[in-house]
């Protein structure tokens, strides 16, 4: 069964295409992260799935039901807003019970479900507290519990963790992922934080300028970016120009990379090499020669910035393989062919 399918969904605001023919098919129970820079259309897409915006064209289906024309309140959703949108006039318990209350469920059922959910989010005994008395992380969990109160068909989260500090955010990412796996609910999270997406998602959907640039598993997105935009957005990378010479070898910054070649007929392209794949050696044959401009020692990793052929290349190493260089040293750069992703588009 398809948990969510988007068929050429488009949203125009005047002449501006916020979302441009987005097509996506997600199996039931998948954890999807919509990832992209601000203004890429990810939030608009989420709001269309929720029914808070109407698509200009295209259709949306949840569990194979076309819901394009169904109003929000009949879509059977759970949604966590960026602002969390907890009702200030209701207590924690009343907030969580809200979807049950407006459906006229009995007081007993409401109380039982609130207890269950509070246990699930580790806030047993908090039912009568006012929302304003909670910490950021606790509020976050209450918003999640409220969205799950009715076991919705689709669980939507709009930048749910952006208000939390870094440590708490990381912990919540793990918690959210575990919760989703336990419940097996189709989940869509909007985020601009690629770490967050990598931690939680089964499927990462990278968006840029209203379009899907790549939709794949997190590791694949990292290892095999579809284009320069994705490569640059996900993690740190070195994007370098590459040319084919007469002998069919791929030449980067004037040096041929052994084992790397371009498709027949392609003269110029780009390669993406992750910093942790760049090796530094003594300057000499076979290596691109450059000069170290800056060394950033972060304790856990060491980033070396090398200028070569007018470009800055970053190499990341662990302290154990500590490269013996200082700013100003001449250095050789080796790009292993198996780590270079050729982006011919």
């Amino acid at each position, binding site marked *: 069964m398809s948990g969510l399918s988007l068929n050429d969904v488009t949203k125009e605001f005047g002449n501006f295409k916020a979302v441009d023919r987005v097509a996506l098919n997600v199996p039931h129970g998948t954890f999807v992260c919509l990832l992209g820079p601000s203004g890429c259309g990810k939030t608009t897409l989420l709001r269309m799935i929720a029914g*808070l915006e109407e698509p200009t064209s295209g259709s949306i289906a949840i569990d194979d039901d076309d819901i394009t024309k169904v109003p929000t309140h009949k879509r059977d959703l759970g949604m966590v807003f960026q602002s969390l949108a907890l009702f200030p006039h209701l207590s924690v318990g009343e907030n969580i019970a809200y979807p049950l209350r407006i459906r006229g469920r009995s007081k007993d059922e409401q109380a039982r479900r609130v207890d269950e959910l509070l246990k699930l989010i580790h806030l047993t005994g908090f039912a009568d507290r006012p929302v304003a008395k909670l910490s950021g992380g606790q509020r976050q969990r209450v918003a999640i519990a409220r969205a799950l109160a009715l076991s919705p068909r689709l669980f939507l989260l709009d930048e749910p963790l952006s208000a939390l500090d870094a440590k708490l955010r990381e912990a919540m990412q793990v918690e959210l992922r575990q919760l989703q796996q336990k419940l097996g609910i189709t989940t869509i999270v909007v985020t601009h934080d690629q770490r967050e997406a990598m931690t939680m998602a089964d499927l990462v959907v990278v968006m840029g300028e209203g379009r899907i640039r790549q939709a794949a598993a997190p590791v694949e997105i990292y290892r095999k970016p579809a284009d320069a935009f994705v490569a640059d957005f996900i993690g740190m990378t070195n994007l370098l120009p590459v040319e084919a010479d007469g002998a069919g070898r791929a030449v980067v910054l004037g040096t041929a990379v052994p084992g790397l070649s371009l498709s027949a007929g392609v003269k110029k392209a780009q390669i993406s090499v992750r910093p942790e794949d760049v090796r530094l050696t003594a300057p000499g044959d076979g290596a691109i020669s450059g000069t170290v401009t800056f060394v950033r020692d972060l304790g856990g990793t060491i980033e070396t910035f090398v200028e070569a052929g007018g470009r800055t290349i970053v190499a990341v190493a662990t302290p154990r393989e500590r490269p013996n260089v200082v700013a100003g040293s001449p250095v050789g750069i080796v790009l292993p062919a198996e780590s270079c992703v050729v982006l011919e588009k």
Partner: protein
Amino acid sequence: MMQNWLRRLYFGVVALFIAAPLVVVLGVSVNQKQDLTFPPKGFSLAWYSQIFTDPEWRSALIASLLLALSSAAIAVSVALPLSWFLWRRKAPWARIFQLLGVAPFILPPVITALGFLTFWATTGFYGQPWTAAISHAIFFVTLPLVTLSLGFASIDNSLVEAASTMGADDRTVARTVVLPLILPYLVSGYAFAFVLSLNEYIIAYMTIGFTMETLPIKIFNALRYGYTPTMAAVSVFFVALAALVFGLIAKFGDIRKLLGAMGSEVR
């Protein structure tokens, strides 16, 4: 510090200016004899009890209270659907009604009063008690309109959206989210209109002045035809009532916010 001392002095002078006439009136109101002397000679609360026992003062008090209660209710009943519509719908031309709601309050009151006088005289209802209630309601509709617009503007839209994702239709959202959130603004709008209606003179005078007396009309008439300390007692009563109402608003709401300290401008 020098500056601190200066500020205290300045606050003190303003406070004295604002309090002085009220203190004198308070003093006069407890005179033992029917004299308007200050400092008071003797001490008596008889003039206060007269508000409730003297048939003329009592009927004026009742008339004033009825007028204020009903006109504030009508004002809120007009302001609530109007401000709701302006918040909920995109209809720029509907702003004209907002302007109409604010205009009577901005214009000099004599003008609004004269407008009502000519209107009720023309339609033949001149002097009927209910004409004053409607006139006051229209005159003071500005107050609930402003507080309610502020209230609606302060509702975070994601709260409304969150309710609808959880299955609430428009009507349910209005009942379970919007109404509870604007209730404080509704109450303060009513309270503002109530207190000001209680104190209003010229419109009441021009609409029903020849057939009945509200407290301000009664005080004014007493001012012309014979002073009595009861006037002072009524004045103290009014100040106390206003302070009580606004004090309650401040206690249970945020009066600074109501007066525009935070949040967006009313538009």
